[in-house]
């Protein structure tokens, strides 16, 4: 910035009009998302006060914050950790099963002809409707919740990984075959790395799906967790408190999504478009 300013207004210490406008434009662009969010909150608060909307219909942001502060930090942490544990366990299971499964589907015509239709059927089943059955079948523990989360999160990873594995340029496969490197090395050295950008887009989708899965599971059967907290709050008409739980849930989801992007940037920066590195 400094060099721009001095070169633009070399005769005096005062930055030139042009430089000021350019700087404003840059900062305006950077702050636009935050400003939009703050603006929305202000309008929301104003509308609630102006029209005296009852808090059980739409609580104002300030009411939500107050309700959130009434719940102790230990309680919040308990709920957050419960939801996070289920979501991450389901997510980990989804990754651990989906990627090898995708490799198997790509390698075996038999598996792709038999297993893939079944996967599509599972994906087409509304998991929310199956959740109560799973809870009854698997009993009262984290297990049914993890299974529900897994079922919601796994499919995008399978589909994207398969797409990525198949998207490898044919010429590289020919290069591999001309070197007689073998199918295992072809998969490890060429196909899987080529699938990394595809896998990461799926991982970003699935991390938010995992949170949804955990909440759905908690709606059905739980005694802790943010999903349970929201259910519990609404059943006692503590709407501002439910909104506070919801806000934390959204923040959690955003943080995990962001973490996915950071992991990709740290470990496989080449898989990102140049502008996002």
């Amino acid at each position: 910035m400094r060099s721009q300013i001095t070169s633009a207004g070399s005769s005096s210490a005062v930055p030139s009009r042009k430089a000021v406008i350019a700087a404003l434009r840059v900062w305006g662009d950077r702050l636009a998302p935050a400003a939009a969010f703050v603006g929305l909150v202000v309008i929301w608060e104003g509308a609630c006060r102006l029209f005296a909307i009852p808090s059980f219909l739409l609580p104002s942001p300030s009411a939500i914050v107050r309700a959130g502060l009434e719940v102790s930090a230990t309680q919040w942490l308990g709920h957050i950790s419960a939801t996070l544990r289920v979501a991450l366990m389901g997510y980990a299971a989804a990754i651990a099963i989906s990627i090898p499964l995708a490799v198997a589907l790509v390698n075996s015509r038999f598996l792709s002809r038999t297993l893939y239709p079944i996967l599509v059927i599972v994906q087409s089943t509304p998991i929310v409707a199956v959740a109560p059955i799973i809870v009854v079948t698997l009993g009262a523990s984290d297990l049914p919740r993890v299974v529900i989360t897994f079922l919601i999160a796994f499919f995008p990873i399978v589909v994207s990984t398969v797409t990525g594995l198949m998207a490898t340029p044919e010429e590289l496969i020919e290069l591999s075959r001309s070197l007689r490197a073998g199918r295992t090395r072809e998969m490890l050295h060429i196909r899987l790395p080529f699938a990394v950008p595809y896998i990461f887009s799926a991982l970003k989708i699935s991390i938010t799906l995992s949170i949804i899965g955990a909440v759905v599971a908690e709606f059905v059967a739980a005694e802790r967790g943010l999903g349970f907290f929201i259910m519990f709050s609404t059943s006692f008409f503590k709407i501002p408190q439910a909104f506070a739980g919801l806000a934390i849930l959204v923040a959690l989801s955003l943080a995990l999504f962001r973490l996915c992007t950071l992991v990709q940037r740290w470990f496989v920066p080449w898989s990102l478009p140049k502008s996002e590195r």
Partner: protein
Amino acid sequence: MSEHPRVIRFADVEQTFGRADGGAVTALDGITFDMGRNEFLAVLGPSGCGKSTLLRLIAGLIFPTRGTVSIYDLAVTEPRDEIGIVFQSPTLLPWFDVLGNVTFPLRHKYGRVSADDNARALDLLKLVGLTDFARKRIDELSVGMQQRVAIARALLLDPDILLMDEPFSALDALTRDEMSFELLRIWSERPKTVLFITHSIPEAVLLADRIIVMTPRPGRVREVIDVGLPRPRSMATLSDPTFHALANHIRGQLFSRAVA
């Protein structure tokens, strides 16, 4: 080329491919020719004349429906170590730097790369004019430079035979000319038997000892032309009357076919 030992031989090769509807397409028909040691042979023809099929037969990636393809008088039954391939697009790996891409064939084939291998790869980068780019990322390079890396990669295992499948067709005209002369320089420093597939007449005439002109559907040899222009070839070759006579002759051949 009769004074050189025979490296590649095509003997009455036919290649048909099954179609999805159950029919068959004849890609190559009655292909017969020899290539001598360190000969530069260009295969020229319109798209759909089976040029790339020819290359894949030598590489041992596919096998002829009839006839035989042999290297050093042995029928090709699998891919062999004597062969390096340069494809139409550079097809480099974005997760490796330039040096990593050049050494990739060794890493891929044997699972490890020694310090010696790296030194050899650096020599190759020097040969293709990329000495200072060893640690660059692939997306920092122009397409022309990427294709230089692909050439270095193809030379890593020191193959006797270099197969090039329209390697410069993705480049702009100026880079393309530059790369043609670069290839001639590299070839004179590291003589190889080169099969160079192209659909550019000037490129074929400038580079090759002999040119096989092919006809499409099915791919057949229309004519084999001895270029006979003196080496080393340079910018001056481009204004040689023989160069133009040959180019015009080939153009006439391909054009008469197109009209008929």
